[in-house]
């Protein structure tokens, strides 16, 4: 079975926490552009970065990331 595209709610979670992309990027130790691309679905983050984003936004991995069609 081919893998579907990954999707995420990072933008929603970040806005809900009242964070800018730059602030979230600083908290998780990446560049603002990386956060922008993750939010836009243009970059698949590593598990390590997913976990750091989840921790910084107070969400679980399941709430933030999923595979299209398996939600």
């Amino acid at each position, binding site marked *: 079975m081919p893998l579907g595209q990954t999707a995420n709610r990072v933008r929603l979670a970040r806005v809900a926490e009242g964070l800018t992309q730059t602030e979230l990027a600083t908290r998780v130790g990446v*560049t603002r552009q990386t956060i922008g691309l993750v939010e836009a679905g243009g970059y698949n*983050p590593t598990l390590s*970065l997913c976990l750091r984003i989840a921790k910084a936004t107070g969400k679980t991995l399941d709430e933030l990331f999923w595979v299209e069609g398996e939600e």
Partner: protein
Amino acid sequence: MLFQKIIPDERTRASAQLAAALWLGVTQVLLAGVLLYRLYVLGQPDEQLRDFQAVLAISIFGYLFLVAYFGGVLPVPTWKGAILMYMVLVSLITVISVAIHGWPAPEDWKSTWLPGLAGPAILIGAYTLALRFGYWRTERRIRSITDRGH
């Protein structure tokens, strides 16, 4: 401050790896172009281009061997597979060389048959070793991490 501090992250590192791989390919193609130009347009003798040829060969085969080694998952060829690869390579080299230079004189075996027969054997042997060592390295890493209780 003239420049803001840039924090390299996983994406920028991946981009740098992609850029390096792409530019390595471009460099190899350019070097091959220079070799062909010097050989067939400027008519320079083959012996004067040995250094360029060595650099290009080391670059291409070194890259392939490292990919095989660090990947550690490529199928390691069986004896039959390796022999088949050897036969195909030798046949290709023979057909192309004979088509360009004609059948070699028996006394020239050191510069014709020897590299044509030994070269592919060395390449396939080294490639198989790179695959095998890469496979062992990856399996050893998995065991070592598993043994630590993760």
